[in-house]
């Protein structure tokens, strides 16, 4: 944060939070925050002929933690194709080594997000026992603010409380876990299925009971949703659905989304929605096997469009060689069986699981091409762009550095058709998907909704991120795109969004002409819940540690303060 004044002058301002769609205007920053105006001694950034937006908000990305690092370790070859940081300024200023294409080093992660003008990234899944590792990587990731979502959907305490219908105890446990892990919200990954993986099993449908615990995924989702609203957390529950990646899984997807019907959001953060369904692309498939595998994006979006209290992110396939990594342990075993590439399977003994398998999304392999189309279709069918967010489930469907490419495809039918034309099975792709028949091209305003205002609101961060109203964080991205004369060649849109002309973070210029010029000041954002003491939960947790169930002592479990030196704490007060 700097007390300097900056004025970003004369750009095309795109700010969906205030319904500003390309008006030429100024954005003033002082003391690290957006303000109404600044003095004449402010530093002037000439944004004439350029687009000005708030810093981007990425709601789901695997960038920090033990399974991310396990991926780095098992894939030396991922670094071979990652390019070299040759910038003279970088060498002179002691900037850190950038390596890795699909699993970048923490330094490359921070630098590349900043180059694209992103200010906030949510680490999608934090295993509670190894939360310290997640925070160490967050600490070492320069520039961007980050938060992390601990996983709850296969947690033994959660399953036992919810089996007995004890929502209040579940809520108290969530509050405790968020505090000790410095977590942000309730992540639910393959609920029940990942717990079943400890026995080599899975839960593919909402009614498959978890062995030993005898609770179903549907009950886990419903219970966590209730506990989340009981607490009034900033974010809704964040759900990686069961039966990911399998042909014909879309009815299961709809069944899970239906759990949100009639549930009202309860919170003081402006969040209107109660369920966030992540990387929906992987859950929108029809067919009975790989031979008749097809997109069911339209069917899924027909429901999502009507159901105003749910949000989703795309999880777009980018047609790259990438790495899949997820707490959906059984799925990764399945994927290893499909492509026979090396497989890491860890963390099963913890509150979760993790699997990692490299994956090549080949445009000439029919199912991969169909997946590519499906992700884009979800956005192109969406009616409310504030409820649809752009992600690639980095690195699962592709690296986050491909967001500008995804945006290019969404904004240009010609670009989509050009990619379609390079596919060996393009006529089969056209028959199995909707993409060829969609003419819609998203506008930059809609893109700003999907990457700024929408995700910020869903996360309960609409007062500080995702917009340019006075009082918000001084995070401003300037792109070399003339809103009044957008390039006919969509490649130029991708290039412009890949390297911001300027990126200002907390009132400090951190990127200029696409290059990182400062490490800025990152913050670790987490949610601290204050609620009346729950003696039952306190006793249950303390007993679990002392019975020998855990391999660490309760005093060693919490994340230490030194691991998050720059905290931005969001307080939640729960009345009795």
């Amino acid at each position, binding site marked *: 944060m700097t007390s300097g004044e900056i004025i970003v002058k004369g750009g095309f301002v795109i700010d969906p939070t205030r319904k500003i769609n390309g008006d030429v205007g100024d954005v003033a920053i002082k003391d690290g925050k957006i303000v109404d105006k600044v003095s004449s001694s402010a530093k002037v950034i000439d944004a004439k002929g350029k687009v000005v937006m708030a810093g981007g908000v990425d709601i789901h990305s695997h960038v920090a933690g033990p399974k991310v690092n396990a991926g780095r370790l*098992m*894939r*030396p*070859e*991922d670094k*071979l194709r990652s390019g070299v940081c*040759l910038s003279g300024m970088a*060498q002179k200023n002691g900037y850190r080594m950038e390596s890795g294409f699909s699993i970048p080093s923490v330094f490359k992660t921070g630098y590349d997000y900043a180059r694209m003008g992103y200010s906030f990234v949510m680490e999608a899944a934090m295993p509670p026992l190894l939360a310290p590792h997640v925070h160490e990587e967050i600490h070492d990731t320069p520039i961007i603010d980050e938060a992390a979502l601990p996983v709850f959907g296969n947690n033994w305490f959660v399953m036992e409380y919810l089996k007995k219908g004890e929502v209040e105890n579940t809520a108290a446990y969530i509050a405790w876990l968020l505090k000790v892990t410095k977590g942000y919200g309730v992540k639910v990954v393959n609920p029940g299925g990942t717990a079943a993986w400890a026995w080599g099993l899975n839960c593919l449908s909402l009614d498959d009971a978890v062995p030993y615990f005898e609770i179903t995924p549907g009950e886990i989702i419903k219970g966590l949703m209730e506990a989340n609203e009981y607490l009034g957390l900033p974010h809704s529950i964040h759900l990686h659905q069961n039966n990911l990646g399998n042909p014909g899984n879309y009815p299961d997807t709809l069944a899970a989304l239906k759990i949100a019907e009639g549930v009202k959001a309860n919170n003081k953060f402006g969040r209107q929605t109660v369920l966030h369904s992540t990387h929906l692309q992987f859950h929108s498939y029809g067919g009975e096997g790989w031979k008749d595998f097809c997109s069911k994006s339209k069917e899924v979006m027909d429901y999502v469009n009507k159901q105003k209290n749910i949000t989703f992110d795309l999880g777009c396939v980018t047609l790259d060689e990438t790495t899949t990594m997820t707490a959906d342990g059984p799925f990764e075993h399945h994927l290893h069986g499909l492509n*026979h590439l*090396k497989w890491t399977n860890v963390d099963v003994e913890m509150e979760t699981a993790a699997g990692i398998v490299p994956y090549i999304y080949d445009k000439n392999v029919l199912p991969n091409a169909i997946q590519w189309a499906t992700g884009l279709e979800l956005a192109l069918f969406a009616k409310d762009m504030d409820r649809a967010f752009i992600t690639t489930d980095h690195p699962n469907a592709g690296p986050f550095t491909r967001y500008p490419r995804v945006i290019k495809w969404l904004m240009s039918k010609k670009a989509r058709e050009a990619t379609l034309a390079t596919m060996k099975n393009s006529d089969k792709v056209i028959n199995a998907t909707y993409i060829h028949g969609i003419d819609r091209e998203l506008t930059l305003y809609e893109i700003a909704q999907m990457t700024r205002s929408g995700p910020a609101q869903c996360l309960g961060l609409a007062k500080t991120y995702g917009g340019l109203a006075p009082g918000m964080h001084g995070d401003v991205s300037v792109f070399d795109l003339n809103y009044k004369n957008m390039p006919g060649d969509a490649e130029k849109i991708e290039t412009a969004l890949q390297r911001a002309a300027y990126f200002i973070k907390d009132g400090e210029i951190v990127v200029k002409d696409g290059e990182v010029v400062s490490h800025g000041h990152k913050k670790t954002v987490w949610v601290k819940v204050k609620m009346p003491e729950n003696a039952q939960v306190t006793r249950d947790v303390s007993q679990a540690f002392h019975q020998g169930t855990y391999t660490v002592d309760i005093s060693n479990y919490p994340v230490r303060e030194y691991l998050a030196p720059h905290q931005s704490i969001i307080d939640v007060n729960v009345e009795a």
Partner: protein
Amino acid sequence: MFEGYSITPDAFAGKTAAQIAELPGHEGKFVLKLGDFFTVSGNGGDTAADTDIVIAGDCTRVKYIGSKMTAGSVTVNGNADMYVGGWMKGGKIHIKGNMDSFCGIQMEGGELLCDGDAKNHVGCAYRGDWRGMKGGLIRIKGSAGNDIGTAMLGGTIIIEKDAFIHVSTHAEGGTVIVKGDVEGRVGGQMVKGEMYILGKIKFMLPGYKKVDQVQKECDGTTYTFDHYIGDLGERHGKSKGQVVYANLYLKAA
């Protein structure tokens, strides 16, 4: 230790000696120039195919010579460091001395000839990668160390003397010929491709079984071989209804 990735016919083509001297090369994290380490005389040809490079002097500490080249030739009148001809697609490299490790890494075509010995990881995949050498020819007149042709997909590697351990590990194609002895671990986790060993294998892998004895031509000469198939511990695919195995031809006593 200098990274000579610019020492290729492709980089030299169309350039004068002065321009060639300006070509970059890393020493650690610093970017230096060829002219800092070499005196350059002569000009590049019009194309890579017309360009022949001859290096006199001790290149024991020069890495990546001829890497990624597509045509033309590079001759080193002495030793070379690691990664000679790495990722090369065509053309010819001749090292008259010894080479260090990782020569011909992920090679796709062309020829690499070494008059001396090579160290380890000859014609291999990049570490961690499952896609190795795809094509081309590597001939080493001396001996090699461990890890020959890891994850090989195609092409030919000929070692005229001995090799240590790990030949064709994880290979799915290609041909490796060792005319001397091999310590062991030949064809581990291999599912397709051929190996010809003219000397002795000190330790055979248990996943190989002898099926017959055959006469086969190996680098121009016909011998009688004990024919083994393997690696039987692996998952093998079918081609035209027949299960495909890796073939190990061990010269009969």
